[in-house]
């Protein structure tokens, strides 16, 4: 049995450490926010069609407005913010080396993103969407109308979460955006170079992913996510990681 001491210690130690981290994070809710199925749809949209015994643990996937347009990205991820995130911006966008420096070699960076829920940034996106609503899009107008299209299911209105700020210092971001309408989460940022042929030359940042973008639905609220519309209370703990504290079905 002496050969098993180290493997047993490693497996129990790892699980104890993970449970400890989870408990420490959830020990203090530093932010709370109420989202809906628009911001947190089911990670598996076909869940209702799967036999009940095969459904597993439901998870909700955080959705946000990507703000992929390079010019719009510069509104919230300016040069100063990108440098604060650790990106090197010493080469000018028009420089012949810019494509190589920003196109492939620039490593993505880990930092913190601030999301605003249904605030001025989202209203600006809606206003622009209204302007372009008449224009045909590959999604058949669904995107322009602010709805997410899932084959075989009714369209879901798009998320009202909009990234508006970023940085390496979580506390500074919490001080600036610490009220109930915002979420500060760990995220991965990338840098992109737009060539002259596509409206550049331009260097812009983008939000590549949120570190914990899928949230597990606790056992007591698993029935609630089968409703077409629901509200989700989300808390963010000491480590800046979110978790679900309650889910309620919502009337249409």
């Amino acid at each position, binding site marked *: 049995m002496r*050969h098993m001491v180290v*493997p047993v210690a490693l497996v129990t130690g790892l699980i104890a450490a993970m449970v400890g981290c989870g408990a420490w994070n959830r020990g203090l809710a530093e932010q709370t926010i109420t989202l809906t199925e628009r911001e947190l749809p089911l990670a598996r949209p076909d869940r209702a069609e799967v036999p009940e015994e095969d459904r597993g643990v439901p998870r909700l996937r955080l959705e946000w407005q990507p703000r992929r347009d390079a010019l719009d990205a510069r509104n919230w991820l300016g040069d100063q913010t990108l440098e604060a995130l*650790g990106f090197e911006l010493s080469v000018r966008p028009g420089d012949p080396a810019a494509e190589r420096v920003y196109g492939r070699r620039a490593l993505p960076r*880990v930092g913190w993103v601030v999301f605003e829920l249904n605030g001025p940034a989202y209203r600006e996106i809606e206003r622009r969407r209204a302007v372009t609503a008449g224009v045909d899009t590959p999604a058949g107008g669904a995107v322009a109308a602010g709805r997410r299209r899932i084959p075989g299911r009714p369209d879901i209105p798009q998320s009202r979460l909009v990234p508006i700020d970023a940085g390496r210092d979580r506390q500074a971001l919490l001080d600036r955006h610490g009220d109930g309408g915002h979420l500060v989460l760990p995220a991965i940022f990338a840098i992109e170079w737009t060539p002259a042929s596509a409206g550049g030359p331009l260097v812009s940042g983008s939000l590549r992913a949120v570190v914990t973008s899928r949230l597990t639905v606790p056992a007591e609220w698993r029935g609630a996510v089968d409703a077409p519309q629901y509200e989700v209370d989300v808390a963010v703990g000491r480590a800046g990681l979110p978790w679900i504290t309650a889910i309620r079905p919502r009337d249409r």
Partner: protein
Amino acid sequence: MADRLEAQRRADRIREFRAELGALRAEGATPLTSEQETVIRAYHDALLERYAREFDIDSTERSAGLSRGLQAASFFGAVTLTAALWALVARFWGRLDLPVQIGLLTFIPLALLGAVDVAARRERSLYVASLFALAAYGAFWLAAIAVPELLDLPLTPGILWTGALFGVALAVPYGFRLVFGLALVALVVAVSASVFAAVGAPWTIAAERLEPAVLTAFSLVVAARAFQGPAARLAPVARLVGLFLGLGGLFVLSSTAAVSQLPLPDRVVEGIYQAAMFAASAATLGRGLAAGRAEVAQTGGAFLTLFLLARYVDWFWTLLPRYLFFLILAAMAFAVIATLQRLRARARRAGGAS
């Protein structure tokens, strides 16, 4: 005699010796007197009996064939047992509360570790123990991935490090090669992930930028020389894993600069890695032949062939008419056959002279 593998090799040599002696006797060229044969046979019988008692080796062709069947069955059993555990979790997980889920995720690998220990005591050939070990490793990764998911925590390089250490700690005392190989793969990913995490990048970028993984893999090949004690018998596994990951990574880097971190134009990066790939695979082939390590020579040869074929297709597929493209490949095959035949003849002459 240090372990079962060495005992098995000696038993195989004894079996071959007896077969050759029988053939010589049938052809009337027996070099030994009947007394000498009797003494040697008695000594070998005693040796085989001791090995069978201590190491549960295969002393006949038939039992060796059955052993290969046992190895295949234990591998198949381990894979299906692990798949059953993962499927069980997926199926019933939704009905369980968090403490029960975490309790089960802890209990399953611990129970399988206990099964490894019990099986290893009962059966010296370790077929059943290796089955449980592989399943325990699968259950460890199930827990390492599912617990953070349940607690909404991110996967971190620390989890990869723990997985690598768990695999090594489980494999080394018993000599479980497959578990050891998988643990070394986890170790390469853990080192590479930690390098990127240390510079403020997401660790998952390790899959998109291959240089740290390639360097770590080749370091394994060098480190295998220093393996001592119970780990020494696993040195060939470390060499193979290191060579596969190192040469495999270099092959990808030589094909596309998109997975490189070098701050140079794409063509230059691909040129550098094409030269490095040719040198590394040729050196591996040469080193394997010189050291008499068949697995190293075969790995080097396979990657060298793959690389040359890839470059040939890359450079000439659009340049040459199809008939000429394939004709040149056929001519290359003839050239290889001619070269190998000449080498074989030279080796035969050298053997005859000695």
